[in-house]
Every structure is written in structure tokens, then in C-alpha cells.
């Protein structure tokens, strides 16, 4: 791998940038690997990278049915935060956030991680109390959280509705200063390049069509490019976790739902934080191109369609204009959807399965992007050692049978509500 640096930039400038090497190879699949990872999104690529880096396992293939980062990695709204209320989530996401802080240097690839802060507006007393409780919990485990007064919010985000007639008067805000956004494609590309440099084979346009199980043990995968044997198989396929795990006969506590997102036309720098509206379903941040990228809640019904319906877009736009009236005349340029594998308690599954040699990293609901490095790190550990790390031990499949669900929102087994 040619390292990216100011010197490589200058050297290539001399030759008019015609001689940059490809960022990763495109090898043909070998007949067998020690580990096969299904899914070339952020999580799968991060897993392959940490298998090679932390555990010295380089005989690894990442199989991707389309192109790298073409699924939810390229469809999310790029938020990175660790502002959870339950301790098991806090510790895991804080670990992930710490990896983000050193990620560009670690990968020698600029993932454009911008710690601009994630801010949730407060409007009501009970909500304020809940946010304070959440922030205090985060500070207890060593993360960062501050509560801003109305005046401090107004100085930081003057574009919100502070008028006397505001429908939801802003009384304060909850801020995690170290949270922020990152460039999602760069995360896939950075992990792919760094994993490839350590010997991982990344194979695109190779769809897994079956998982071969012999005497309770996974022995390989059927693909559109033939059978590939593997001692261990990791599933990291976001919205299709039930579908792929079903190939090995597993039935999971997951429903697949769709979540929409959209961007406005680009405008000049306008919003300096990643904003969450505390009185409705709306969050937004401004991209480096100037677009406001925004999203809301799930459409609310099972779907594998990667597209949603207009009522939710109208709902998100209405909430956006409620809290930021000045964007009312902005046009929405694009909208799309991703498939969320919603678990029954809203918490991911990073675990061994009842099939030997088969591991699942899924059920990310709509929070997978921020977890990318942390998820890859603990999933690599789980695959390499055949047991979970203490950070992902609570995220096992058996928690549902045993009654140890981790229900961040406290809504029970209703996936669409998490």
C-alpha cells in the first residue's frame, strides 16, 4: 500500500496524478479461507481489518453482492455519538467513539470525522430531566455531556426558532461535544484499503446464495462465483441479517424496516452542530457540500424495498420547518431509504450462533454507522477467539430467551418503535 501523505501528494502532482495506484486489489476468490465475512459494508470491512491487525488473521475474504458501501454504509445520515442511557450501550458506543477519534490516522485515510457536537433540543421539564439523567450517566462512565441553557443554545445554533411564537419553545439542549459526523463512503474505502494492505481479499459482485452447514458446523458459502470454503463465517449484512442467517436455518428476533433520509439543495455554512429535534422526529447536519442531510423515524412496516413513502417525508419536513423556519423554502434534492434490521429490544446482536463457526454482527436498527469501528473490533475478537469480548457479551442472541434484553427506549418487543 502506498501511504498517503503530503509527500505522496507532491510526488503524484509532478506526474499530473496519473500514477496513483488502485486503493485495493480485486482478486478472484480462492477456494477456501480461514474466515469469510459476508457483507462489504463498513462493519464487514472493519471486521476484516481488525482480524488482520489485532489477531494476525489475514486469510480473510470479504464478499459483497454489490459494491463497497452501497448498502446502509452509503445511506445513513453519518452521525457518530455515544449518548446512550443504558450502561452496556454507553460502554460499547464510547469504545467505538474513541476508535473514531484515531481512525483517520490508523487507516491512513481521511474519514473526515468532524467532532462538531451532537445537540438535542429540550422543550419540556420531564424531557429535560431525562436528558440530564442520560448525560449524568454518560459522565459517570467517562464520556462527555453538557447541558446548555436557552441562551447558550441560541448562541451556538442561532438558526433555531427562538421567537416568542415558537410552537415548541426551546428551554435548553443536551450536547455531546465529542460526537459529530464522518464521511460515510470514506469509512468503507478506508477500511477496505487498510484491510487489503494486510492481505484481506475484497471480492465485490459476489452474492452469497447459501451457507453450507455439515453436522451443526458452517463449512463454507455458496456464491454467485462458486463455493468458497471457510473455517469461520461472519455475517455483517445490515438489513438482510434474517435473510442470510436463514440460509443456515436460523430464525432471529429481527424485523426489517425501512428508514428514509433526504438532502436539501446546498447552501452556505448554516448549521455548526449535528442537530436532533427533541420534540419530534427530525435530525439534521450540514454536509461539507452544504446540503442539509436529514431524517426522521421509520416508516413503520416490514420492508426490504430501500424506498419509502411520501407521508414520512412530509412529516420530517414539517418537523424541520417547525424548529428551523428559515429553511422552509429550501428544496429537497434527493431522498432514499435503507433497510434496518430492527431487533426486538433495539440493541444489536454481535455474537456466536447455535451453528458452530457462524457468527452474526447485525440487528443494528438505525444506529449502525457510529458503531462501525467498535463493531468491527469486537466482532473480529469474537470470531478470532470464538467467544465475545466483555463489551459485546451483553449483545448475545440468548438474551431474549433469558430475559436480559437491553431496551434503550423501554418500549418492549415492538421493533418499529425502537
Amino acid at each position, binding site marked *: 500500500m502506498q501511504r498517503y501523505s503530503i509527500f505522496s501528494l507532491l510526488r503524484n502532482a509532478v506526474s499530473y496524478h496519473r500514477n496513483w495506484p488502485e486503493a485495493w486489489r480485486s482478486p478472484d476468490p480462492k477456494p477456501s479461507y480461514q474466515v469469510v465475512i459476508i457483507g462489504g459494508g463498513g462493519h464487514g470491512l472493519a471486521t476484516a481489518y481488525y482480524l488482520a491487525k489485532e489477531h494476525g488473521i489475514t486469510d480473510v475474504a470479504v464478499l459483497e453482492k454489490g459494491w463497497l458501501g452501497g448498502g446502509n454504509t452509503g445511506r445513513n445520515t453519518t452521525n457518530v455519538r455515544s449518548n446512550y442511557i443504558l450502561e452496556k450501550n454507553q460502554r460499547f458506543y464510547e469504545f467505538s467513539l474513541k476508535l473514531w477519534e484515531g481512525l483517520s490516522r490508523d487507516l491512513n485515510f481521511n474519514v473526515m470525522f468532524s467532532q462538531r457536537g451532537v445537540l438535542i433540543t429540550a422543550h419540556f421539564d420531564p424531557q429535560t430531566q431525562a436528558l440530564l439523567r442520560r448525560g449524568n450517566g454518560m459522565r459517570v462512565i467517562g464520556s462527555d455531556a453538557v447541558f446548555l441553557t436557552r441562551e447558550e443554545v441560541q448562541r451556538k445554533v442561532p438558526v433555531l426558532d427562538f421567537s416568542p411564537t415558537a410552537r415548541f419553545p426551546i428551554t435548553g439542549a443536551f450536547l455531546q461535544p465529542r460526537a459529530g459526523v464522518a464521511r460515510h463512503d470514506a469509512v468503507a474505502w478506508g477500511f477496505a484499503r487498510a484491510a487489503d494492505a494486510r492481505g484481506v481479499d475484497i471480492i465485490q459482485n459476489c452474492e452469497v446464495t447459501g451457507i453450507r452447514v455439515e453436522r451443526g458446523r458452517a463449512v463454507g458459502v455458496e456464491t454467485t462465483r462458486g463455493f468458497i470454503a471457510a473455517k469461520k463465517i461472519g455475517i455483517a449484512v445490515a438489513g438482510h441479517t*434474517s435473510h442470510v442467517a436463514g440460509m443456515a436455518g436460523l430464525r*432471529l428476533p429481527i424485523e*426489517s424496516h425501512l428508514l428514509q433520509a433526504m438532502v436539501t439543495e446546498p447552501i452556505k455554512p448554516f448549521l455548526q452542530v449535528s442537530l436532533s429535534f427533541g420534540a419530534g422526529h427530525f435530525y439534521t447536519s450540514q454536509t461539507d457540500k452544504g446540503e442539509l442531510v436529514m431524517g426522521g423515524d421509520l416508516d413503520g*412496516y*416490514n420492508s426490504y424495498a430501500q424506498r419509502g*413513502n411520501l407521508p414520512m417525508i412530509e412529516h420530517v419536513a414539517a418537523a424541520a420547518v417547525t424548529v428551523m423556519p428559515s429553511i422552509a423554502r429550501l428544496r429537497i434534492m434527493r431522498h432514499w431509504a435503507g433497510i434496518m434490521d430492527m431487533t426486538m429490544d433495539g440493541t444489536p446482536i454481535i455474537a456466536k450462533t447455535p451453528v458452530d463457526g457462524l457468527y452474526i454482527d447485525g440487528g443494528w436498527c438505525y444506529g449502525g454507522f457510529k458503531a462501525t469501528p467498535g463493531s468491527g473490533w469486537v466482532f473480529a475478537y469474537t470470531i478470532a477467539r470464538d467467544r465475545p469480548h466483555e463489551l459485546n457479551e451483553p449483545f448475545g442472541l440468548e438474551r*431474549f430467551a433469558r430475559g436480559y434484553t437491553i431496551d434503550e427506549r423501554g418500549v418492549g*418487543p415492538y421493533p418499529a418503535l425502537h
Partner: protein
Amino acid sequence: MLIPCPHCGQRPHSEFTYGGDATLRRPSDPALAADEEWLDYLYLRDNPRGLHREFWHHTLGCERWIEVRRDTLTHRIEGASATGARRGTRT
């Protein structure tokens, strides 16, 4: 998305509340049901990529539960039927 309510005709889905998988069966005797039966009913789902039998409640219409057959990959609705007191029984 338009849902053909058997009582009201074609209505926009925003009038409805989603009720989830219609093939699940609640354990008939809760006191005697094994843990595995509760696990199966409460948590495990087929989550099909294709035809899905699901409940919708016509909240802003006739306020009745209906069962809809919908393709989760295309959102095409193949049909809908009245459920009456049938909720929770596997047929």
C-alpha cells in the same frame, strides 16, 4: 401505498396503524406455555423478503383490524381480508 380495507375500500396507508406479523400464535394457555413458546411468540420472526401476512388497524377509518398480504420487497399488496376475532390464530 394504498391499502384495500375490506370495509372501506382503497385508503392511504397513513390512515392505518401497523400491527406486525399476522402468522404468530399466542400460547393458548399462558400459564402452561414453555419458555420456548414465549420466545417464539414474543421475539422470533420469519421476517420474509417477499410475501408477508400482516395486521393493520384502520385507526382513522373503520377502526377494525384487517389482515393484509403484502410483498416486502416491492410493497405490492396482493389482498386484504377482515380478521374479526381471528387475531392471534394461525391459519
